């Protein structure tokens, strides 16, 4: 099939100028499609937005935001922008409360999705000679069929093993000579353990070279550990069912940020409270506008995922911007004394101190008329020097103040003393009266 460095060099390495022109043209097309959706039509009409009125990317700011609640309250087909006979597949994700969300795909949508996934796979060196085994659940969950069709378009041999049964997974890996796996990080770790139990060294005894890591948030250390355990290179994959599924953004071989496909999505990173764009490089909520979707175009969809743009160009030559590993959910944001604070900001500072462990607890309470924040953090090591503990507390306080613009009370605590719920550390305890 293809033999160059890129799956689609004309798009992947497109100049910013051409990419912008393409985005404007596609945004206009998206608005035109959205006008056929029962949900968007009245909003666009009221705001006087027509395809012709879109002349630059700044016009994006005039478009309404869309939230998961909008999708829920217009269940199932309220955002569908084509007659239902054009829809060839629906995917649905269940919510813990209320209606599930539904995404409707035309055949062209499914083809575009498969193309994005194939582009991601090609980017990390997978070819038609590879054997790709998918450990995602199939069915309504997009990690199954999404990876499946992408891998088939790439021309690889696919092993749709689906979720579970680790011994069977390992048998397939051995018998079919699987070279790549798609798995969530916790399952990859589990598989490594089962390999070990079976007396098989995945690094030596299998043909595995590549792991596509889906869905679950994980740290860089966890990725490195999985790479070592399985003897593979592991690449981060970002997607969400509202935006098709896997393949929206993906790491290239540099493993430094995920290229987000800007010919398919308009990308914004905004302050979750003011909804204004944050300066490049600062953390905010990822907001996506689909540029090619026919069945269900989405305007300025608030993903709730926190990330930031990585600045500078990527050595791989792709011009599509990179976003950082995900930093958490915007729902985690706290407003203290009028300042927006994400737990991740505090975590970043604490992790910079080798004397500290990885567990911490942020408590906010009302004292008099004021909100007071206390940061308790577990110590990892001590010296006999009493003064150094005091100095450490002072330095943590100072750095936190620089980062979050208010002065928390910092308390050093013994390892293992902070509360955990179901094995997971509790990070924030908001005890304010109005919360």
């Amino acid at each position, binding site marked *: 099939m293809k033999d160059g460095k890129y799956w689609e060099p004309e798009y992947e390495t497109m100049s910013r100028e051409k990419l912008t022109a393409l985005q404007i043209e596609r945004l206009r097309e998206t608005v035109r499609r959205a006008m056929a959706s029962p949900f968007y039509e009245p909003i666009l009409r009221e705001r006087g937005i027509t395809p012709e009125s879109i002349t630059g990317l700044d016009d994006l700011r005039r478009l309404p935001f869309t939230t998961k609640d909008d999708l829920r309250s217009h269940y199932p087909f309220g955002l569908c922008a084509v007659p239902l006979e054009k829809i060839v597949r629906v995917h649905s994700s269940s919510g813990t409360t209320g209606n599930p969300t539904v995404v409707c795909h035309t055949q062209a949508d499914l083809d575009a999705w498969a193309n994005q996934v194939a582009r991601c796979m090609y980017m990390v060196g997978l070819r038609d000679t590879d054997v790709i085994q998918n450990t995602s659940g199939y069915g309504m969950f997009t990690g199954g069929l999404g990876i499946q069709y992408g891998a088939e378009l790439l021309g690889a041999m696919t092993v749709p093993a689906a979720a579970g049964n680790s011994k069977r997974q390992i048998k397939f890996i051995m018998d079919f000579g699987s070279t790549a796996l798609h798995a969530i990080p916790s399952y990859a770790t589990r598989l490594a353990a089962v390999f070990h139990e079976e007396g098989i060294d995945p690094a030596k005894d299998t043909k595995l070279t590549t792991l596509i890591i889906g869905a679950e948030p994980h740290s860089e250390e966890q990725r490195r550990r999985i790479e070592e355990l399985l003897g593979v290179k592991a690449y981060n994959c970002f997607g969400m069912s509202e935006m098709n599924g896997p393949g929206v953004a993906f790491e290239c071989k540099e493993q430094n940020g995920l290229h987000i496909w800007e010919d398919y999505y308009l990308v914004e990173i905004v302050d979750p409270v003011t909804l204004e764009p944050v300066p490049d490089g600062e953390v905010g909520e990822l907001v996506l506008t689909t540029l090619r979707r026919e069945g269900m175009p989405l305007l300025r969809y608030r993903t709730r995922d926190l990330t930031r743009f990585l600045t500078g160009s990527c050595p791989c030559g792709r011009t599509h911007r990179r976003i950082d590993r995900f930093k958490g959910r915007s729902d985690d944001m706290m407003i203290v004394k009028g300042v927006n604070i994400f737990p991740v900001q505090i975590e970043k500072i604490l992790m910079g101190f080798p004397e500290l462990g990885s567990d911490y607890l942020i408590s906010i309470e009302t004292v008099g008329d004021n909100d007071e924040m206390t940061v308790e953090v577990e110590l990892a*090591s*001590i*010296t*006999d020097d*009493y003064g150094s*503990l005091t100095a450490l507390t002072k330095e943590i306080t100072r750095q936190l103040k620089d980062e979050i613009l208010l002065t928390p009370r910092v308390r*050093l*605590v*013994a*390892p293992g003393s902070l509360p955990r719920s179901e094995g997971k550390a509790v990070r924030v305890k908001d005890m304010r009266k109005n919360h």
Partner: protein
Amino acid sequence: MTIKQISLFLENKYGRLSELLAVLSKADVHIVSATIADTSDYGLMRLITSDQQKAYKVLKDNGVLVSLNEVVAISVEPQAADFARVVELFTRRGINIEYMYCFNFGHRLVLVLRCSDLSAVREVVRNNSLTFVTETDLMKM
């Protein structure tokens, strides 16, 4: 000439000290001295036992935050004048004492000093016929 001292991090929380002592009791060692320096949030407990390696290992294995460090222990008559003489000798030699405490050991008083210039300490002890307490002495308890 120095002995090992265990420093451990102690949160000012109800029951934390009892927990620590319960752990220590597993080590089957005698406590020679225990002092606590504290603020409102946490304290640093300094501990000398009859077998420091054993005590250190038990505490560490039980997840207690500990460090092992060197201090000077000098044995004197339990009189204020003898105590004062040692402090005077050290001060006159320009040795900076970071902290000190003492405990009774037999019929003697043991001064525990934390100072950085150990060669100067050795010189003062030798020139003035003072007596170091060694770990072997402690083990005889």
